[in-house]
């Protein structure tokens, strides 16, 4: 019974949400609150429209580039901060200053300097993703067992090799937790950047529709963006589990030797 229900649970939750939406919308009879069915019906036209698809793919491309750049910058920085006191002492106050600032709030200035094109938007995504990844890489690197590093040193690993071949894999579970937060933040900053710099992208479709009063399209885009987030997160979770399969116990009880 339980085994049958478990995979169905998210589907049931979705159906429940859509039903509640449908009823609320029918009850309220507000133009700016289309029914769930109308919104769902508006999805296929968006996904079959070449222009919209190009826009959505452009969004995803910026998101992927911003995310990848952020990882290649944030992971090494976080690991170095976790293993070097002076690195941590230097960067921690800086990051603490940047951390609470909404990255989208920087968008106007960035636009002023770099224009409204891909560079500005990718940069905002990069900033949004970097901070949680730095933080988690830092925490992960700090927690690496000293004796593990000593074991590596005794095998002849240089400090650089120890960082790459011991600290990085040992901190990987924590780093990937940061990356998972980063993916969601990438999606959020992607949409907000397109909301501010209205030129192309999924966020642009949404806000154009809003301007034109096409509320079913607005809600359809919200569903599409949400679904993208869920799919990205689920795909990442599969990769994450595979990468850190060694860190999760595969047996309830450790095997006894005797």
């Amino acid at each position: 019974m339980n085994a049958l229900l478990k995979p169905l649970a998210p589907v049931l939750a979705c159906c429940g949400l859509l039903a509640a939406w449908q009823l609320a919308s029918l009850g309220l009879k507000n133009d700016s609150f289309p029914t769930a069915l109308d919104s769902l019906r508006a999805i296929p036209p968006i996904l079959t429209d070449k222009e919209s698809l190009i826009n959505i793919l452009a969004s995803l491309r910026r998101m992927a580039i911003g995310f990848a750049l952020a990882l290649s910058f944030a992971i090494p920085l976080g690991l170095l901060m976790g293993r070097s006191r002076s690195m941590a002492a230097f960067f921690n106050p800086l990051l603490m200053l940047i951390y609470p600032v909404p990255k989208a709030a920087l968008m106007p200035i960035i636009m002023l300097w770099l224009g409204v094109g891909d560079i500005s938007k990718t940069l905002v995504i990069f900033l949004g993703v970097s901070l949680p990844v730095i933080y988690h890489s830092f925490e992960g690197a700090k927690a690496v067992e000293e004796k593990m590093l000593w074991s590596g040193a005794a095998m002849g690993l240089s400090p650089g090799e120890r960082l790459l071949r011991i600290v990085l894999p040992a901190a990987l579970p924590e780093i990937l937790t940061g990356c998972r937060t980063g993916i969601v933040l990438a999606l959020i900053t992607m949409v907000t950047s397109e909301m501010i710099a209205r030129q192309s992208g999924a966020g642009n479709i949404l806000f154009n529709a809003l301007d034109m009063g096409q509320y079913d399209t607005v809600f359809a885009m919200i569903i599409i963006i949400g679904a993208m987030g869920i799919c990205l997160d689920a795909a990442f979770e599969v990769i994450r589990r595979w990468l850190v399969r060694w860190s999760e116990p595969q047996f309830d009880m450790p095997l006894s030797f005797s």
Partner: protein
Amino acid sequence: MGVTPIRPGQLAGVPLGRRPAEPIIEIDHVSQVFKTSSRRDHTALSDISLSVEEGAFVSILGPSGCGKSTLLYIVGGFVSPTGGTAKMKGKPITGPGTDRGPVFQEFALFPWKSVLGNVMYGPLQQGIKPSKAEARARALIAMVGLTGFEKFYPKELSGGMKQRVALARTLAYGPEVLLMDEPFGALDAHTRTRLQNDLLEIWERDRKTVLFVTHSVEEAVFLSDKVVMMSRSPGRIREVIDIDLPRPRRREELLLDPRYQKYIVEIERMFDASGDNELPS
């Protein structure tokens, strides 16, 4: 105190043609002072001098807090002493090296590597061909009794098995000295006894120099050629005792041997007399 003369009996069972009298490790007036948060200096080790002959099994025995692990870390090159020098084969120790292989109480295995991957790690790092490294690793895994567990991750192993892997991993890169830091301290009594027996059996085959830190009197006497007794606050060597028991040693024979019992009683009395009686065995 420092250098003790070698009694003939200590060499019983050492194959001819080997000269175990060479000191492989020399610890010369080493001291270690830590700065504590209250700005008062804590002297962990005070003026330690000790030499370890090649091929000897030497235990450092003492209550917790006597700095015995710190002494081992200094020999390992993981910690620099604040005073004095430690030498390996006449050369001052400045850092870790493949000639000194540590085995820690915490195992410190690489959790992302399988048993085989852990044991192969050192040889691969030394530039040994993967096929050769694997053959060596498999042989060592068999020697520590873990054949069939090559593909397991450390997470899936019990404490005793993890320590077997850690020993194999260290032996794999061929250190001249094994530095064992309370290696069986985290294990239950039964597993501990089994690992002591197996370690002794493995050691008696090739007689690598072993520096073994423990707080168990029985463990020290059972395994060692020489027991270095330490006292704490500050950590000093208070006595070096040669354990003149024949090898190969077998637990069931030793337990009935009055000489073995006498060593244990004597050492325990000495600790009791000094007030360092927090000595769990």
